[in-house]
């Protein structure tokens, strides 16, 4: 009923084409997370799904119906704006209930929904305040509340938790997941928080400059990034990228590593880039290579070790509590089966 089907969508601001012929199918009940660098067009995409900006080309179907030109309110969506866009003259309670009142929902039902959302968002004591009297995080929660009470078929969330503390964010993340399960609505969710992306998404869409780079489950996107951009974009600390050249036999590289590349995918002399996640760099005494520690970042439950092997700098994540100091030389190894291999020219994944 409320899947979203986008075909050939193009959006321009003046001469600047921000979304470029984008195709995207969102299944009903799916939790889709949009990821991408700042300014890549995520908010623009959400706004166009909501019908808040005119599209320059393409079509948007919601629940099987062509909604390209439909009114925002017709589309059965709830939305959290990145900039909140709260109604300044209304109290928190009025802000949340406005849409329902407009739709003529019975009073008791409005009250029930508003109270439920307020409770979940810990806004109950603030229901009588105006937006100007709220902290940043509180405003953001009101914006979430305003969307939630609509119990719509499609929810569009634009970085809804960005201004909340980690604890509250974790709680709300769980609540949203629960809500998604009970309501069964479709969610399209923009976030920069990879934990959110990983825990919430049934699928992740990675965008860059208005073009989709990869669509897949969190594990797929993280473990088998489709190109260099996706590989580099996901994961903190970032994936280690090592430029190499294929040896004559086509499967060993620089003499030291041998890779399982599908036959014919690489030829001798080709420039490749290897992607190694920091957590796949294992500091072990019998490692095949050695490197010098440059910097150690303690992160509470793990440490990030920045090292250099020859010219190549890279990072590793260490989970045991052992003391590592800068300047030390350590042996390390990597698991070839977990490597990502990219063509240096096309930047596409090869394995």
């Amino acid at each position, binding site marked *: 009923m409320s899947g979203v089907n986008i075909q050939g969508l193009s959006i321009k601001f003046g001469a600047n084409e921000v979304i470029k012929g984008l195709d995207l199918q969102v299944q009903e009940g799916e939790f889709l997370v949009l990821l991408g660098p700042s300014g890549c067009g995520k908010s623009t995409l959400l706004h166009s799904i909501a019908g808040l900006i005119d599209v320059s080309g393409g079509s948007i179907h919601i629940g099987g119906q062509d909604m390209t030109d439909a009114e*925002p309110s017709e589309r059965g969506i709830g939305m959290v704006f990145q900039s909140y866009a709260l109604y300044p003259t209304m109290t928190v309670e009025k802000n949340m209930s406005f849409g329902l009142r*407009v739709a003529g929902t019975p009073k008791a039902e409005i009250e029930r929904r508003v109270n439920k959302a307020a409770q979940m968002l810990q806004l109950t004591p603030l229901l009588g305040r105006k937006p100007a009297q709220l902290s940043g995080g509180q405003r953001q929660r009101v914006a979430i509340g305003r969307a939630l009470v*609509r119990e719509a078929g499609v929810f569009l969330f634009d970085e809804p938790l960005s201004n909340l503390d980690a604890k509250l964010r974790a709680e709300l993340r769980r609540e949203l997941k629960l809500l998604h399960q009970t309501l069964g609505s479709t969610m399209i969710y923009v976030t920069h928080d990879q934990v959110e992306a990983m825990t919430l998404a049934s699928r992740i869409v990675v965008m860059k400059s208005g073009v989709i780079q990869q669509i897949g489950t969190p594990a797929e996107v993280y473990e088998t990034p489709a190109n260099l951009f996706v590989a580099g974009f996901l994961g903190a600390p970032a994936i280690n990228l090592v430029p190499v050249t294929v040896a004559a036999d086509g499967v060993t590289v620089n003499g030291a590593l041998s890779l399982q590349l599908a036959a014919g995918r690489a030829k001798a002399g080709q420039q490749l880039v290897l992607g190694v996640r920091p957590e796949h760099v294992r500091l072990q005494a019998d490692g095949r290579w050695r490197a010098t520690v440059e910097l150690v970042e303690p992160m509470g439950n793990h440490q990030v070790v920045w090292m250099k092997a020859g010219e190549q700098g890279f990072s590793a994540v260490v989970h045991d509590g052992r003391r590592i100091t800068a300047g030390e030389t350590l042996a390390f190894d990597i698991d070839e089966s977990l490597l990502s291999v990219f063509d240096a020219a096309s930047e596409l994944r090869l394995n």
Partner: protein
Amino acid sequence: MSKRKSTALWARVGVYAFLLFAAAFFLLPLYVMLTTSFKTMEEIRLGQIFALPSSITFDAWRAAWSEACTGVSCEGVRGGFWNSVTIAVPSVVLPILLGAINGYALSWWKPKGSQWLFGILMLGAFIPIQVMIYPLVKLEAAIGIYSSLPGIVFVHLVFAMPIMTLLFRNYYAGLPAELFKAARVDGGGFWRIFIQLVLPMSTPMLIVAAIMQITGVWNDYILGLTFAGRENQPMTVQLNNVINTTTGERLYNLNMAATILTSAVPLLVYLISGRWFVRGIAAGAVK
């Protein structure tokens, strides 16, 4: 620290000095009006306009309110008071409401071609209204509302339209567009958004519009005279009869008293409206 405090103090002194100076400039004519209204004509003829009255007499006020003759009737400016109220209420409410609706439709919905409508309307604001009186008389006579309450309200509506529309259109154009977006997602249709979201945010402009419209309608007499019909003559007709004589004797003290009395209603509105001039209507709305 103390230097800062002292500069702040000087800034404060400067602010008050400016305001007081300005107030003096603005109040000087009122002072002259007030003192004149308490003088006798003998004293006024001496031409000492800044002098305080040698003895205060309320005769002029009494006469202006309830005794002054204009033509056969001698009831001062009091006579048309309720007529003025009857004319003012619809002639203030309707144009403001319509102006707000127009401004909202023009700035947020922008239906195709509406900018032309607005353009012509704004051009219309530059025609001296007196030129339009005759055709409007003909028009109203044709549709049968000439010389009646609806007739005068309609005329006020016509003449108020450019400014009221402009006022609201530009005000709404300055509000964050995000609010409109949010409201549209919330499912507000044209009227819902207007009534529940836009109107409450318009308080300062509603006040300004009310100030303008009340003043305009209340002080109008040429339109009231021409369009309202005999039964509905506003009190300004009497006021103008009192003060606008050329060839009869002129009683300045009465003129001043009558003018102040007639302005009482708009003045009261100004005073009361103050508390709606609050700060930061749109603040905290969007990030």
